[in-house]
């Protein structure tokens, strides 16, 4: 159906004065409509506000965001304003079709590996860090505003027109029910970076456990549409479904099956962060998990994925299980799993499988979160496939120290056989293998 703007309507951007042509309406929401437009031969999206939502404060906020620029390329950020006599809107990049919403994941329209999900989780935390470090807050986290590439985990953050300066600018939205921090639900606080942290934790829980962290028995008892009951659930009496000290709101079989299935699969360290987020962090914003903690945990989790030799399902190496001598078992076929070789570099542990790659992030303390080019690959012996080696993809020569104390150089493009007790000096850091 035609929207407020007719196809072939010609408009011009305010700042760059570039002409654009409306192609078609692609979506409509509560604030306005989104069109596909062509501008200088390229496709962009144009969000066009309904006249009643196109007010001066909104225009002023958009100008600020456009002039300020995106905190990272993952934000589908306003690029330029478009103004007419009836309303206004903004041009933003056209999002690639490979991105799907987290809602599609929950509806099982797409499937993703743990590798992808932990990557998407890391990217979410990393980009929220970029946003918050710039003094901005998102204020509008919802399943529909975050998309990811189900094959790589790359994320895309849309609907950025509600981003504002933390604790300063007007919030045009209160947030989405279920994602709002309890103090916002109660009306005690405005959306801020503190409340963003709560929303981020909910989103990560949705991404990884594919259920809501507060939806358990309490939610199941709410039948009719009952806003006061929902405010109790998310604002006044929230209880984490896996709260170790409060079992009144456990997930219900038949309703919250995803949470029941996924929760035990994840390492204890990740579950601990969720537990803190949704116990202490419910009422004390200072106890909420910050972006850095999520980043480090999710990267650690991604580094510890390995496959069941029997059914190929992926599991996480859990150091807590090693500490307590609890065997790893496959969540899918329930076979007891032997743990693959691991490389410990500083505080990091990386499980070594034929698909493992290490990056400067792992081997250069000054290049944290640099995943640009792999510097270590795991290779299989050409004849004895059970024998794995560390292949040097970097420009540096490594020095390895074997268990018997002998040393050897590993120049670029050469490999070192993975054995228990092998120490590798990568140049800036050293690591040790347990096999």
């Amino acid at each position, binding site marked *: *159906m035609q929207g*407020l703007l007719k196809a072939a309507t010609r408009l011009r951007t305010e700042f760059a004065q570039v002409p654009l042509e409306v192609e078609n309406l692609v979506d409509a929401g509560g604030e306005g409509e989104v069109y596909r437009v062509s501008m200088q031969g390229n496709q962009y999206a144009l969000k066009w506000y309904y006249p009643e939502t196109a007010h001066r404060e909104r225009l002023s906020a958009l100008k600020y965001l456009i002039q300020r620029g995106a905190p990272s390329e993952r934000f589908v950020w306003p690029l330029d304003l478009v103004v007419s006599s009836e309303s206004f809107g903004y041009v933003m990049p056209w999002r690639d079709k490979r991105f799907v919403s987290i809602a599609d994941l929950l509806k099982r329209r797409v499937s993703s590996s743990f590798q992808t999900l932990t990557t998407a989780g890391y990217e979410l935390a990393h980009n929220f860090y970029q946003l918050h470090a710039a003094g901005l807050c998102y204020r509008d986290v919802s399943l529909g505003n975050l998309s990811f590439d189900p094959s790589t985990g790359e994320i895309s953050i849309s609907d950025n027109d509600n981003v504002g300066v933390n604790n300063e600018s007007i919030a045009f939205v209160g947030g989405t029910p279920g994602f709002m921090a309890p103090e916002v639900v109660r009306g005690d606080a405005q959306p801020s970076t503190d409340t963003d942290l709560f929303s981020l934790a909910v989103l990560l829980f949705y991404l990884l456990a594919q259920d809501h962290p507060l939806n358990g028995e309490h939610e199941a008892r709410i039948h009719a*549409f009952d806003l006061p009951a929902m405010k109790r659930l998310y604002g006044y009496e929230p209880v984490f479904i896996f709260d170790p000290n409060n079992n009144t709101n456990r997930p219900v079989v038949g309703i919250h099956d995803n949470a029941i299935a996924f929760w035990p699969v994840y390492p204890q360290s990740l579950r601990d962060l969720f537990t803190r987020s949704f116990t202490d962090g419910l009422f004390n914003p200072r106890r909420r998990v910050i972006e850095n903690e999520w980043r480090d945990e999710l990267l650690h989790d991604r580094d510890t994925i390995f496959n069941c030799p029997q059914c190929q399902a992926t599991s996480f190496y859990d150091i807590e299980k090693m500490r307590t001598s609890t065997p790893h078992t496959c969540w899918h076929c329930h076979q007891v799993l032997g743990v693959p070789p691991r490389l410990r570099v500083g505080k990091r542990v990386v499980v070594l499988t034929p698909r493992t790659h290490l990056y400067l992030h792992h081997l250069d303390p000054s290049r944290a979160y640099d995943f640009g080019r792999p510097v270590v690959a795991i290779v299989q012996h050409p004849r004895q496939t059970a024998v794995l080696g560390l292949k040097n993809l970097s420009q540096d020569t490594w020095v390895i120290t074997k268990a018997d104390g002998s040393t050897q150089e590993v120049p670029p493009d050469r490999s070192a056989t993975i054995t228990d007790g092998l120490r590798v000096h990568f140049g800036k850091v050293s690591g040790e293998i347990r096999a």
Partner: protein
Amino acid sequence: MKSGMAIQNKSHWVVWGTAVRGLVHAQRGLPCQDAILWVEADGESRRVILAIADGHGSERSPFSERGAQIAVAVATRTLAQFHREAVVSDPRNLVQVKRTAESHLPAVLVAEWRKGVQNDFARVHPESQLREGYDLWRQYGTTLLAVLATDRFILSLQIGDGDIVLAAEDEQTDRAVPRDSRLMGVETTSISSDRAIADFRIGFNVVIGLRPVLVMASTDGYFNSFVEEAGFLQAAQDYLRRLREHGAAYLQSHLAVWLEETSRRGSGDDITVGLIWRANTVDYASETSETEATAHAGTLEGSDSPADRVRSSTT
């Protein structure tokens, strides 16, 4: 034939619809397993609510006719509560209304429907040990399509096949809820499934000017009677034209006959069509009488009279 009385919502939306038994169902001696229910404005409110459902009718779902009736009752009641609690208090905040609907309504509809099914089964089969769970729910399996129309927006919810179409003043039509690519075969998503909450699809369309002026909700027996999608979408415009040319009473008196003929020539399935249209764009007032009723459910009457002349322009 299932039908109800038209309700005139004084200044804006009028709602009407009917459900007819398909030829195949009649030949097999099966009842119409569709259900339709609507609710008019309650005093000061100017919203209307429409719900239709298509019971699966398979061997696995022997009580799907009841499942469909429970579904439309739950949907109209829930949307009325939603309007009262989430819309009336802050009608201008459409973003919040949309998000509250998306966040909560599927879970509430599924939970309420299950409760209704449990009560129904316990009443009819007090001796049975079966009290809840998928073994029970799938016996009542049904689709559900529900629409809440207000001055500001059209909220549409759907699980399973069927269609909700919006028609604008300028004769453009569009789907209120995008088609689900998984529903192209015989199988449909269902309110009885374990994934029902996730499988709900929601459309939210802000009312701007004369867009839309008519909403058409129909069970899949209607869509399946058309050769092409374009012809199906055109049907919504045809209803609009008829309302303008002949008035609401004409549509109300002929709709069931048209649908029976459509089923006979087309899918052979039960067909239910519910229509909501803008009172101020269609000159019907002289032909419809106001009613004090607040809700109408269809009752089985039975009719086989064809309406050849009309069907050719609605298909």
